C-alpha cells in the first residue's frame, strides 16, 4: 500500500463513484447498520460516564507513555515474552526477518492487524519466501482478491455478498449462490490446514496492560485465538500508544470498543496473552514476541494540537458514521487507516506534503466526534491540519486566491452586499468565468433567489 506520491483522495473517489457504484451501496448499507448498532449499544449503558472515563484513561496513559511502556516491557519480559522496539517500518520488518530466520518460518497465519498493514508486513514476508494467510474472513477475502482493507475493523466492507460469492466460486469452488455462512465455512476449511502447518502466528494488539504484561485482543471469529495458540511462535506488532496502565482497565475498554465498533456488548473472543506456554501446559506457543512500533508516533505525541489522536482505540465508529466515508469506503484514502481518524493520523505519520488532501475530505459535520468513544475532537484537528497545509502552501489550486478575493470584497460592505445579491441573479447564472460557480454547477443547479420576480410580502 505505501505510495510516496501525494495521496489524491479526490481522484480516487471520483473514479470509484464513477466506475464501481456498488462500493458506495455496500459501504453505505454496512456502515449505517454498524452505526445503528452502536447507537443502540450506547443507549444500554451510562454512555457518557463510560466514555468520559475511557477518554481520561487514554489521555493519562499517553501523558505517561514512557513510564507505562517501560513497565510493560519489564512485566512482559518477566513473563517470558521477548520484547523488541522498532522506530519505523523498516526496523519492524527487520525484527520480523530475524524471527523468520530464527524459527525457520515458511508459513505464517495472521489475525487482522492494521499495524502490519501500516508497515507492509505481508509484502515483506512474501519477499522472504514466506507464505502468508490472513485468517480474519474479511481480510482473507481481500487477500485472495489482491486488495487492501477498506475499513479498520471490517476490511471487506466495500464488497457485497454476491460479489464475494462470485469470487469464491472461481477461487474456492463454492456454489455461485452461496450464503455468507457457506462462504465462511469454505474459507475456514481452507484455513484449517494453514493453522496446523504454520510456524508463526502474527497479530496486532488492542491493548497491552502495563501492570501485568498482558497483550489483549478482542475479535469475533476465533481466528486470532488460533493464530496466537496453534503455531510455535506468536508475534504481536503493537503501536506504542496501545499501552494502558492496568489489566483491570480492560474491563471498561474492551466492552466499550465492542459497543462502539459493532454494537456488541463484547466481542465473541477475548484473548489475554501473558507469555508462552509453561512447562506444565499442553497448549500454546513456545515463544511469544512483542514488537513495539513507533513509526512516527512519538513525534505525534509531542504535537500539542494533534497528539490526542493517539488516544484512538481503533473501533472504527468514526468511519461508520462518516457521511464521506460512506460514499467511498476506505480505498481512496490510500492508506491503512481511513475515515476521519485516518485523515487525522495520515499527515502526522506520512507527512503533510503527502497527505494534505485527506483532512480536506470532510464537511466538518461533527458526526465523528459525536460517536468517538474516547472523545477525540476530530473536526477541530482536521481544521488544524488544513491550517497547517494552507500555511505550507499546500491545498487545492485557486483556494488561497479565492479566500483572498473574498476577504477583499468582505472589507467593502457596499460592494459585498451588492455582490452576494447578484449571485442568484442573471449574472450569477451566467457565471461568466467564476470558477467557484462553475464547479458548483457541474453537479447542481444554481437556485434563483427565492423572491425572484415577485414583490416581497
Amino acid at each position, binding site marked *: 500500500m505505501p505510495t510516496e506520491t501525494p495521496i489524491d483522495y*479526490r481522484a480516487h473517489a471520483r473514479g470509484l*463513484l464513477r466506475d464501481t457504484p456498488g462500493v458506495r451501496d455496500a459501504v453505505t448499507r454496512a456502515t449505517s447498520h454498524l452505526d445503528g448498532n452502536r447507537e443502540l449499544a450506547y443507549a444500554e449503558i451510562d454512555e457518557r460516564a463510560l466514555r468520559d472515563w475511557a477518554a481520561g484513561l487514554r489521555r493519562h496513559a499517553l501523558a505517561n507513555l514512557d513510564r507505562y511502556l517501560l513497565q510493560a516491557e519489564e512485566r512482559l519480559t518477566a513473563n517470558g515474552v521477548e520484547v523488541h522496539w522498532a522506530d519505523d517500518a523498516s526496523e519492524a520488518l527487520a525484527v520480523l526477518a530475524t524471527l523468520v530466520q530464527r524459527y525457520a518460518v515458511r508459513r505464517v497465519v495472521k489475525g487482522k492487524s492494521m499495524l502490519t498493514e501500516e508497515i507492509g508486513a505481508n509484502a515483506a514476508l512474501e519477499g522472504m519466501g514466506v507464505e502468508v494467510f490472513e485468517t480474519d474472513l474479511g481480510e482473507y477475502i481481500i487477500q485472495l482478491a489482491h486488495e487492501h482493507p477498506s475499513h479498520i475493523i471490517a476490511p471487506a466492507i466495500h464488497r457485497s455478498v454476491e460479489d464475494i460469492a462470485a469470487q469464491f466460486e472461481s477461487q474456492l469452488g463454492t456454489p455461485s449462490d452461496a450464503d455468507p455462512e457457506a462462504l465462511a465455512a469454505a474459507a475456514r476449511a481452507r484455513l484449517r490446514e494453514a493453522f496446523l502447518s504454520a510456524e508463526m502466528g502474527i497479530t496486532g494488539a488492542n491493548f497491552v496492560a502495563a501492570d501485568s504484561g498482558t497483550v489483549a485482543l478482542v475479535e469475533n471469529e476465533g481466528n486470532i485465538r488460533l493464530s496466537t495458540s496453534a503455531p510455535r511462535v506468536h508475534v504481536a506488532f503493537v503501536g506504542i500508544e496501545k499501552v494502558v496502565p492496568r489489566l483491570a482497565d480492560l474491563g471498561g475498554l474492551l466492552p466499550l470498543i465492542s459497543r462502539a465498533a459493532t454494537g456488541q456488548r463484547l466481542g465473541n473472543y477475548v484473548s489475554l496473552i501473558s507469555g508462552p506456554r509453561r512447562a506444565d501446559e499442553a497448549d500454546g506457543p513456545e515463544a511469544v514476541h512483542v514488537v513495539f512500533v513507533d513509526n512516527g508516533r512519538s513525534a505525534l505525541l509531542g504535537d500539542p494540537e494533534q497528539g490526542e489522536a493517539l488516544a484512538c482505540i481503533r473501533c472504527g465508529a468514526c468511519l461508520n458514521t462518516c457521511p464521506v466515508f460512506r460514499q467511498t469506503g476506505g480505498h481512496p484514502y490510500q492508506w491503512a487507516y481511513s475515515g476521519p481518524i485516518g485523515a487525522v493520523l495520515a499527515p502526522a505519520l506520512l507527512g503533510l506534503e503527502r497527505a494534505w488532501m485527506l483532512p*480536506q475530505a470532510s*464537511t466538518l459535520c*461533527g*458526526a465523528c466526534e459525536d460517536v468517538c468513544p474516547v472523545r477525540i475532537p476530530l473536526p477541530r484537528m482536521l481544521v488544524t491540519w488544513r491550517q497547517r497545509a*494552507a500555511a505550507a502552501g499546500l491545498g487545492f489550486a485557486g483556494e488561497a486566491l479565492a479566500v483572498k478575493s473574498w*476577504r477583499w470584497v468582505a472589507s467593502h460592505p457596499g460592494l459585498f452586499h451588492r455582490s452576494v445579491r447578484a*449571485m442568484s441573479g442573471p449574472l450569477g447564472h451566467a457565471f461568466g468565468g467564476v470558477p*467557484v460557480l462553475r464547479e458548483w454547477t457541474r453537479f447542481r443547479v444554481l437556485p434563483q433567489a427565492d423572491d425572484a420576480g415577485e414583490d416581497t410580502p
Partner: protein
Amino acid sequence: MRVALFPSCLAEGFYPRAVEDAHWLLVAAGAEVTVPEGATCCGQPAYSTGHHADARAMLERTLDALVGADYVVLPSGSCAAMLRCFAPALAADTAVAVAAQMVGERSYELAQFLDEIAGWRPAAHGLAGRLIAVHHGCHALRELHAAESAERLLRAAGAELLPWIAQRECCGFGGAFAVKLPEVSAAMADRKLDTLPEAEWLVSADPGCLMQLSGRAGARGIDLPVRHLAGVLREAARAD
C-alpha cells in the same frame, strides 16, 4: 431587546425572502431589529479551509458591526455556529478576543432564538396537516443543539414531521467542500434525496443545505419543494 439580524451571504444572495421572513418573525417576537451594513462575512469559509489570518480579518469587521446588539440572530445555523462556537477560539489572543466572546455568547440560529430566548410560538394550527421533512444543518444539530427548537416550533403549529432515515446525515455541502470534492458532495446529497420521504416541503434553517439539496435535485430532474424555515414559521404565525 435589540437584535442584530445577520443575514449571512448565502441567505442574502439566494434566500432574500427568508431574510425578510426572519426580520418579520423577530419583530413579531418583540425585538427591535437592525441589519448592520458592516456585518459582511463571519469568516467561516476562510476558517474552515484553514486560512485563519484571513478569517480573523473578516471576523473582526463583522464583530465590530455586531458588538452593540443584545442578540445576534442568523437565518443560518452554520454561520451562527461560526460566531458562537468557533470564533472565540479563533480570535483568542487578538484585539477582538473580548468582542468575539461577547458576540459569541449572544449569537443564535433563528429558531433557537425564537424558541428559547424570545419564547415565541406560532399559531396552533398554522401548519395543521402539513407533511414536512426537516433537514438540520450539521452545525445547528451538533454544535448549537438547535434541532429541537426548530422541530418544537413546527410541531407547535401542527405540522407533521416525517421520519427520514438519513435525516441527521450531512447533505454534503460543507462550504468549500462542495466545490473541492464535488463528486463526493453530490453523492452525499443523493443519499439524502434517495431516502427522502414524500413530503410537501423539505425545510431547513441553513441556506447552504437548501442550495445543495435543491441544486442536486434540480440536476437530477427531481421536483423538490424546498423552503427555508423562516418562511414556514412566518406562514405558521399568520394562519390564525
